[in-house]
């Protein structure tokens, strides 16, 4: 494998792993080349990005390599993120809202378990927009606050009751099951 190929693969892998980063061992395993070649390629990429002032940089944090944005461009990121016109409600807040809507009553910790990330900020946002509210305290787990949706929520999404929510998309595949079901249903429909 050429050095350029290794560099290309490293870029792809770093891109996909996102904020988690990836350690050298996993990189080496995934690419199946000498560790030295991986290290050398990372160094070359770092130099290239720096020399050509690219939008990315590779940092080594807590034992893993991570692709991040060039800090020089932070003001533009801020500008994009802040623009209220385009950002009525953040993706994080929407995710959180979906979880609460379907699993209410639910605690912050439970929401965080599902999302896999901290959720204080989105909860605050949703509270301030009156889409969710405290609906009680959890018996166990130190009487943590339980959240639920509000009338405002129903109103905004045009629902008469919470039961009107469509079934949750499951992203994970039920595809195969569906197919099997479909097959059976198809052949069961006709009474003998």
């Amino acid at each position, binding site marked *: 494998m050429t050095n350029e190929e290794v560099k290309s693969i490293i870029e792809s892998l770093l891109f996909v792993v996102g904020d988690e980063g990836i350690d050298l061992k996993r990189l080496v395993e995934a690419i199946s080349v000498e560790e030295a070649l991986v290290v050398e390629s990372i160094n070359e990429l770092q130099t290239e990005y720096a020399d050509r002032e690219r939008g990315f940089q590779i940092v080594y944090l807590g034992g893993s390599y991570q692709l991040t944005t060039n800090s020089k461009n932070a003001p533009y990121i801020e500008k994009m993120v802040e623009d209220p016109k385009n950002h*009525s409600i953040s993706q994080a807040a929407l*995710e959180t809202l979906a979880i609460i809507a379907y699993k209410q009553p639910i605690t912050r910790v439970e929401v965080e378990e599902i999302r896999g990330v901290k959720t204080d900020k989105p909860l605050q946002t949703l509270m301030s927009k009156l889409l969710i509210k405290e609906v009680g305290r959890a018996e166990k787990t130190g009487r943590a606050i339980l959240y639920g949706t509000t009338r405002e929520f129903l109103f905004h999404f045009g*629902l008469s009751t919470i039961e009107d929510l469509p079934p949750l998309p*499951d992203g994970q595949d039920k595809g195969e099951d569906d197919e099997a079901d479909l097959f059976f249903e198809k052949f069961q429909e006709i009474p003998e």
Partner: protein
Amino acid sequence: MNHYNVKVDAFEGPLDLLLHLINKYEVDIYDIPVSQITDQYLTYIHTMQELELDIASEYLVMAATLLAIKSKTLLPQREEELFEEEHDLEDDPREELVQRLVEYRKYKEAADELKKKESSRSLLYTRPPADVTEYTSEDSNTSIGDVTLYDMLAAFQKMSRRVKEKKPKRTTIKTEEIPIEDRMNEIKQQLRGGGRKRFTDLFTEHEKGPMIVTFLAILELMKTRELSCEQEGNFGEIMIFESERKAME
């Protein structure tokens, strides 16, 4: 029956089955030999019945349609029609069916195209949006905007995909790698010197892999008569301990 090789589940309905027959017998979709195709179609239906599969009503309706067309084509044509070819063509009893088949075939082909698109798309990996909380100050008085239910569900779906994506494959492989021998030794160690343990307490980990390994290790130790187990009554707690033979060694 073998030579029919019927794969009913491979058909998406009567039109699909008909298209299959048309391809299989290499006949012209615009000039379907109705007798032949009807016979083949009925053979499939009968085979499905022999296989004791219930047949969806649509298949039977199609069978009836085919028979009706067949009988029409067999009727002697009236004299005057013989000299009006155009009129004759329009009146072809197959016409409507042909149109349906051609229309259906278009979308079947389009579905194949979509599938190709899907598979080339599946080679492109993206990443979830970066955490931008450090850049934001989500203003409490901004309105929620025209976010719809669909947007909320889409956000949820992306999240579940992301959460799944984060699971590195490596962990799965790693859990499979626990050698049963190691687990057997651990269990023996725990029970050495006449100790008794509840069966359930041996399952310290709640992941599938380790649980299976533990279970297999216990079975193996019982087979080699190094461990015994006892249960008082149905659904009682199962107790595991060193077998006497072993304890006497």
